[in-house]
């Protein structure tokens, strides 16, 4: 476990050195200030749209950060050839995969927390309110979803370059959000091969829409039952474990060719 934690700490150190997070934070701050500066017919107290757009961008930026951080780790080690000295130490490949994922996930969740704080701060500043329990539930599920996103990207990056892994991850995440959740509606008009394909997507892709509580938070619908929260969180954990297993299977017997990835 210490080895995994040490590896994840290295991911953190690299992240602090890089500028991705700062850029995303500046972008979010700019966006929120633009939203705040809008004059909605001179009416005060109009604040829900700020929370809505802010949380939407918190999701978007968290996904971008998660994919870019997780997708870079393994290909970068190989491109820089630091994988050889790393594996020469008493570290298993499972440790490497787990450490890289843990680092990427904790970074993404920490940054997501920052994004949430920023959005909530702006909403409160504007005179709005957010139900704290619903917000906490939303954040927990968001964090689990980021676990899936980072694990998926790490799994793909075991066999691809960073660019290819990030592209495939974005496509799968977009598909999970926009198609998988709508399959029951789409199936009404489809049959045969297309219907079977859609069903495969429905059961094969993670249902990320279950982790998105933005509408409940923004429109103040209150907290979801604990049982549902636990069920969805457990569903997310199962997906994370499955994807990490895939990542380990893809990495454990991988042969490294000098300069092949990067």
């Amino acid at each position, binding site marked *: 476990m210490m080895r995994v934690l040490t590896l994840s700490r290295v991911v953190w150190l690299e992240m602090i050195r890089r500028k991705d997070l700062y850029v995303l934070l500046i972008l979010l701050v700019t966006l929120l200030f633009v939203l705040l500066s*809008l004059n*909605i*017919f*001179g*009416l005060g*107290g*109009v*604040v*829900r*749209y700020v929370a809505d757009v802010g949380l939407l961008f918190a999701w978007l930026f968290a996904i971008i950060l998660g994919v870019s951080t997780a997708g870079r780790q393994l290909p970068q080690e190989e491109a820089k050839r630091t994988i050889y000295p790393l594996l020469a130490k008493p570290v298993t490949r499972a440790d490497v995969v787990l450490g890289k994922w843990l680092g990427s996930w904790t970074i993404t969740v920490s940054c997501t927390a920052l994004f949430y704080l920023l959005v909530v701060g702006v909403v409160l500043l504007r005179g709005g309110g957010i139900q704290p329990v619903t917000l906490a539930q939303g954040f927990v599920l968001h964090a689990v979803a980021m676990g899936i996103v980072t694990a998926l990207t790490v799994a793909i990056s075991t066999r691809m370059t960073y660019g290819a892994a990030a592209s495939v991850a974005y496509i799968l995440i977009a598909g999970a959000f926009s198609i998988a*959740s709508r399959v*029951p*509606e789409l*199936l*009404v008009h489809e049959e045969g091969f297309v219907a079977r394909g859609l069903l495969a997507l*429905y059961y094969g892709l993670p*249902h990320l*829409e*279950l982790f998105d*509580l933005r*509408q*409940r938070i*923004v*429109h103040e*619908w209150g907290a*979801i*039952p604990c049982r*549902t929260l636990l*069920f*969805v969180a457990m*569903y997310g954990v199962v997906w994370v474990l499955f994807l990490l297993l895939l990542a380990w299977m893809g990495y454990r017997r991988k042969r490294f060719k000098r300069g092949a990835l990067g």
Partner: protein
Amino acid sequence: MKPKRKYGDWVLPIGAALLLWGVAFSMACRLEGNRFVSVPIEQSFLERVLGVSRVAFGQTFFEQADLYFHQGVGYVRQQAFTNSVFIRAYEVIRPSAHAHTTGYTVSEILPWLQFTTRMDPKNVTAYLTTAYWLRSALRRPDLAEQVLLEAQRKNPYDYRVYNERARIAFQRRDDSRAARLLDAALKVWPSNEDPEDEQTLLDLSVILSRQAILYEMKGERDAALALFRKVVELRPGNVAVARRVEAMEQGMDYSHLDRKTWDILFGGTDKPVHVCGEGDDHDHDHDHDHNHDCEHHHHDI
């Protein structure tokens, strides 16, 4: 040791590249023609940058306004199966009680309506919806008038804008202005709409009815009667107007009731926004089927 390249070695490739670029440039000029001349001067920066896609963005924002009006409850759509564990979980997670925003909270939909009109200034329905909520729920006819003036600037030949402005003028007891605006509405009717469309015809009958009421209030009974007859011709099923024509022909005088009639028929008096009952399907139609020519079709999103 590398052989020294002669100066002349570069002439052919650079010449060929310049020639190809020249051909491509002249082809591009020919393909483009002088289109820039036909670009309307009043196009905004957003219109130029986003092109036609701004209409799609506008529609998305308008749908978002609708979602806000229903407090985040999305439309119920037909599904091929409903017994999936994911669907059951999602039913619990997403907002599902059925309610509409009321009173001042309606102001939460206004940013999305404003984004809609910024993105797609040709979306007259969005302007009318904004004006409706500003005038009714928020009791700000002054802001509603501003919105409609902007709508008129962007859509100078749309009868719906004049018609709505006439309503506000009447609400402010500026009857002569209301009459002028109704005349303008009638001149530009049906604008870009299909003249055979049910809603367009309904709008025409509303304009005529309003004109008739204004004439009647001024004491010009014959002009009012002629207009009411036109309404009956347009909408033979309108029993209320038919009865009124009959009564006027028999010499009845309704002029003392006209302002109240206008309010009842055309929404001058603000109606409370309803809240659907628990278990109602959100996928209901807000265009209520009234016997009279009531017009709040534009206003529920």
